[in-house]
């Protein structure tokens, strides 16, 4: 008991140090993100002069207007930007279409497979599941080149949405595994009752299992949506055409076209700020769920 009291008495200083540390961590996490936004709203000339100001210097919307295509390329160059810039709306549309379609297919088809693995009996079930688990361990680099060749030659799906979407539309090993774990934890009784009422397996799946699994399904969907949204190399390789660029690809192209010696920082950071918005929205709406999902993945 005496030792307990001693540690309790020591808490105040300890607590202060701890909270200073936590504050520093939060600051280091958030400040760079603010610096991006701050630069996006700063005017070209002022960025060079006033490099230290925490607020936007020479506040302006011009960088955003330029990135959103509200100026002609002559006007953009006159402002110190580049003629090429970035087509934000195109990137947003492509990213949205690709990520949304991918997770809709992936979540539904993976849920079907996961349900079969969790509840139905069939031959080679355990062997097949083991194969899926093995695939989870294979790093992406192994399948990258063969999948590219599949798209470029056999399927001829270059420069198409389906080329970008297909590889993770029908399943990812992680999605099947994640949902199977969840389905295993659902109480059998509801299904048994539905079965006695003469419900068929698809009906049980659609009307009993899926509604009970909304939290798990949405958690998975958020994680996989972000994964797709953040992806760079695959959409870059498959969507070579300008009209197929996702936001990440568009940003990378924008950066590669900006002059090496004097990059268009204002424009780049305005583009980055705009690209941040969707993630921030997801973060604000689903942040808690994302935290819980991550904590769950640690125990798979």
């Amino acid at each position, binding site marked *: 008991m005496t030792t307990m009291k001693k540690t309790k008495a020591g808490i105040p200083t300890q607590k202060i140090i701890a909270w200073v540390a936590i504050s520093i*961590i939060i600051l280091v996490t958030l400040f760079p993100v603010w610096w991006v936004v701050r630069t996006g709203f700063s005017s070209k000339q002022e960025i060079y002069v006033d490099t230290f100001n925490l607020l936007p210097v020479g506040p302006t919307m011009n960088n955003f207007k330029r990135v959103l295509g509200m100026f002609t390329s002559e006007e953009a160059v006159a402002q110190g930007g580049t003629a090429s810039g970035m087509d934000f709306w195109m990137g947003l549309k492509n990213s949205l279409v690709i990520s949304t379609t991918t997770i809709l297919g992936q979540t539904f088809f993976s849920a079907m497979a996961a349900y079969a693995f969790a509840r139905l009996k069939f031959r080679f079930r355990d062997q097949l599941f083991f194969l899926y688990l093995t695939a989870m361990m294979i790093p992406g680099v192994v399948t990258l080149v*063969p999948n590219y060749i599949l798209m470029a030659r056999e399927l001829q799906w270059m420069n198409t949405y389906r080329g970008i979407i297909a590889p993770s539309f029908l399943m990812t090993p992680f999605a099947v595994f994640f949902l199977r774990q969840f389905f295993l934890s659902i109480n059998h009784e509801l299904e048994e009752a539905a079965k006695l009422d003469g419900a068929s397996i698809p009906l049980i799946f659609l009307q009993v299992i899926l509604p009970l699994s909304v939290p798990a399904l949405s958690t998975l969907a958020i994680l996989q949506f972000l994964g797709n949204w953040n992806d760079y190399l695959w959409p870059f390789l498959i969507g070579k055409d300008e009209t197929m660029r996702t936001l990440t690809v568009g940003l990378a192209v924008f950066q590669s076209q900006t002059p090496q010696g004097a990059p268009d920082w204002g424009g780049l950071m305005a583009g*980055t700020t705009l690209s941040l918005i969707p993630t921030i929205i997801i973060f604000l709406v689903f942040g808690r769920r994302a935290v819980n999902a991550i*904590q769950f993945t640690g125990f798979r």
Partner: protein
Amino acid sequence: MTTRTGLRSAQRSDFAWAWLFILPSIIGFLVFFAVPSVRGLLMSFTNWDLLRPAKFIGLANYAKLLGDKEFLHALRVTAYYVVLNIPLQTVIALGMAVLLDRFTKSTMIRGILILPWLLPNIIVALLWLWMLDPTLGFINQVIMSLGFERQPFLGSVDQAMPTIAAINIWRHAGYTAILLFAGLQNIPKDVYEAAAIDGADERQMFMGITLPLLRPVLIFVLVTSLIGSFQIFDTIVITTKGGPVDATRVVYWYIYEYAFVRFKMGYAATISVALFLILITITVIQMRYFNADTSDLD
């Protein structure tokens, strides 16, 4: 009698439904995971530029790989990155996790800490490219205002790799901390109370209780972050493109160059297989070393 055949036909229909449910995932698995993996392996024994048909050349690619100085350089650079990245990231994350576990259960703070991990690599890289800009970047402004010389960071052979490692620590430390935090939450509190009664101090409790009981999560974190770390690519596209003077030309970049710049698909596949073998070996060693399948909680 009738009920029996009824049951059997019900079982048979179960069986049919099961395969129907599995079917889409099997197609996806075969077409985009299983077959490409096998194909990648087969390609590694060929010479293929996509224009002419692939030519089987046996182990020639592997022989070439062993004597390929550029590949060895890429491996060395990648290993250097992993060594800079993983230990520091894990220690920082562990510190953050302990802080969270001890002082706050706030989901909002945990949410803020995973924010960098939610952002695309491309955005994180752009963000730090700007922060670390040699002339205008905020970090250099701070360094100079403190009276030191400005640093080249990504523009220098010596600093480029440590800088990229630091950028990725910024992106992943919070995420890793949340994983470890979840592990800490699972350690029964009465173990600490018992140790405190026995007179154990903070350090002894951390070394004697926290670390051993955290082992399963710690292994998961180490294995996955190590595999991820060996595949560093997006950050390099934005920041250094393999430079300066090949200082950040990692294995993944080397594969990319062979496959999509030089269109030597066979050799690119060979490097991929080699990287895969290296990763498997490291994972197995890690599992063995830590006795991954046992937990001290049992």
